[in-house]
């Protein structure tokens, strides 16, 4: 039992990271119908910009600021020069998907080229604090609190602000949103900027959990997809729930009563993804017509 609680706590930590990343991915999908295979590498980019900052001796919360800005600028810039023009030319979903795979390789290996294949850290990982039922490092606590804050922020934005409402309208029906006077191009750009900030933020959270390395986002990408699809693609709330389930499931899979080697735990999460797609492809929170 004690072991299970500890594993669940670990699962919540990684689930929080996945959730932040997954919300960014699903917002972009909802508004643009783009399945972005480069999303994982956008995370890595954010994490590495922060590494440069901490390398200059800045504390992480200061180094995070340029990382979030670069994340937004990068996402917005790509919308400007790549996705926007392609969309106006009528490129298909599949076309865009394949382009995002090419983009993923370019971003990831440019990071490899600049930073090499080594492992970076934001600072030494502190001793675990014993909370009685489980123990977490202070970094883990920051991840959980920081992710929860970001997710609540996104939820409030979607529910309360005009932009959030416009994003939801766009996600429901692009043509109808356009007909009812929503400036589709502007909302699309704003979605990218928000997703860019969230993704860089998620990358820093991922780095805070342990190590920063060039493959980190790519290794997380399929888990992010799993969280998004489990929750229902296009649904931000679904992505949060789905990511938590994925995080906890993969940690619990290593429980000694199950005895799976930890190398295989991501395999279990992947399997969950496939099962969901077969049994309930619209996910937990998704609607059937989104398919």
């Amino acid at each position, binding site marked *: 039992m004690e072991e299970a609680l500890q594993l669940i706590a670990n699962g919540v930590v990684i689930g929080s990271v996945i959730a932040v990343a997954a919300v960014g991915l699903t917002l972009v999908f909802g508004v643009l119908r783009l*399945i972005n295979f480069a999303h994982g590498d956008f995370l890595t980019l954010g994490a590495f910009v922060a590494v440069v900052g901490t390398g200059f001796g800045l504390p992480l919360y200061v180094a995070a600021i340029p990382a979030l800005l670069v994340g937004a600028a990068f996402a917005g810039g790509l919308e400007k020069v790549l996705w926007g023009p*392609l969309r106006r030319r*009528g*490129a*298909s*979903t*599949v*076309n865009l*998907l*394949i*382009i995002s*795979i*090419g*983009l*993923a*390789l*370019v*971003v*990831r*290996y*440019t990071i*490899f*080229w600049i930073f*090499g*294949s080594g492992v970076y850290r934001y600072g030494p990982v502190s001793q675990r604090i014993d909370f009685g039922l489980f123990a977490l490092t202070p970094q883990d606590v920051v991840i959980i609190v920081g992710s929860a804050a970001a997710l609540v922020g996104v939820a409030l934005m979607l529910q309360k602000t005009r932009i959030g409402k416009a994003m939801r309208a766009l996600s429901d029906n692009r043509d109808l949103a356009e007909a009812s006077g929503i400036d589709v191009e502007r909302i699309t750009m704003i979605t990218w900027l928000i997703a860019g900030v969230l993704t860089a933020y998620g990358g820093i959270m991922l780095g805070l959990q342990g190590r920063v390395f060039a493959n980190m986002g790519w290794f997380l990408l*399929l888990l992010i*997809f*799993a969280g998004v*699809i489990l929750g229902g693609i296009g649904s931000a709330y679904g992505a949060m729930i789905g990511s938590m389930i994925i995080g906890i499931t993969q940690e619990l899979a290593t429980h000694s009563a199950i*005895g799976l*080697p930890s*190398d*295989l735990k*991501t*395999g279990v999460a*992947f*399997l969950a*993804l*496939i099962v969901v*797609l*077969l049994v309930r*492809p619209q996910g937990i929170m998704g609607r059937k017509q989104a*398919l």
Partner: protein
Amino acid sequence: MIPYVEGVILTAGIFALLAQGLNLHWGFTGLLNFGHVAFFAVGAYTMGILNTQLGVPLLPSFLAAMVAATLMGIIVGLPAIRLRTDYLAIVTITIGEIFRLVLKSAPGVTELTRGPRGIRGFSNEFYFFRTDIGLGFLSPDQYLLLIVWITVAVVGVLLWVLIKSPWGRVLKGIREDEDAVRALGKNVTAYKMQSFALGAAIAGLAGVYFAMDIGSLAPDTYLPIITFQAWTIMMLGGSASHWGPIVGSIIFWAIFNGTLFIPREIISGAEAAYLRQIGIGALIMAIMIFRPQGILGSREEMILDK
């Protein structure tokens, strides 16, 4: 220079075969398969395990590799093939990764695959065999190169005949408009499965040759990058073109291996490896943006808005 040319032609042949399978899936049937490397790995591992662990002679283990890849195609296809294209992409890439993890560390499986340590010692018999058939004057690489390209030719003709046949026309119909084909009373899922299984078998055979070329089997050879390379080759040459995978593969590997000529003083080996991957990514983007039909493909064959 000669080893460079031989190396390019050999690798190009193996990947042309891999891309021919993918071309059947995507080019002719419209199936967005991003887990192609799994079929490549199944073929290689089936041959390796049968030959080294169970002592099965080489030729039967080659055939078994193709059968195993076909079965894998059916196993992956049964659940996945009804999904919409982008979901199919996610599921297939995920299955490819699950398969690699299982080969690497699943309890029970690693007794056969030897986990990360991998399998060796299956290629000697294959290379010794060349003296028995009077080809002893060829180097091992030349001998493999010959066999690979004969296979590419045979598969190319086979696919050409199949795609010309009524069966192939149904596949193209599915690619263009699945619902229309269904309305004509065709069992779309069955046709897709057949395409998937046959393409997988071709990839399985490519996997066997690849294993012969590098002489060992290790799970982490079979990363998704292999799938992306096959995609680049297919799209570069032109999807839905019979010569596409061949032309694409030769050009791709000539450029890829060409980085070997860059002096080490200018960029190190590791940097060259990173630059190659950046190049693959940039090539994928450039083709899709500027010439989605590839070098040899025709625009009419490309479905741009599906």
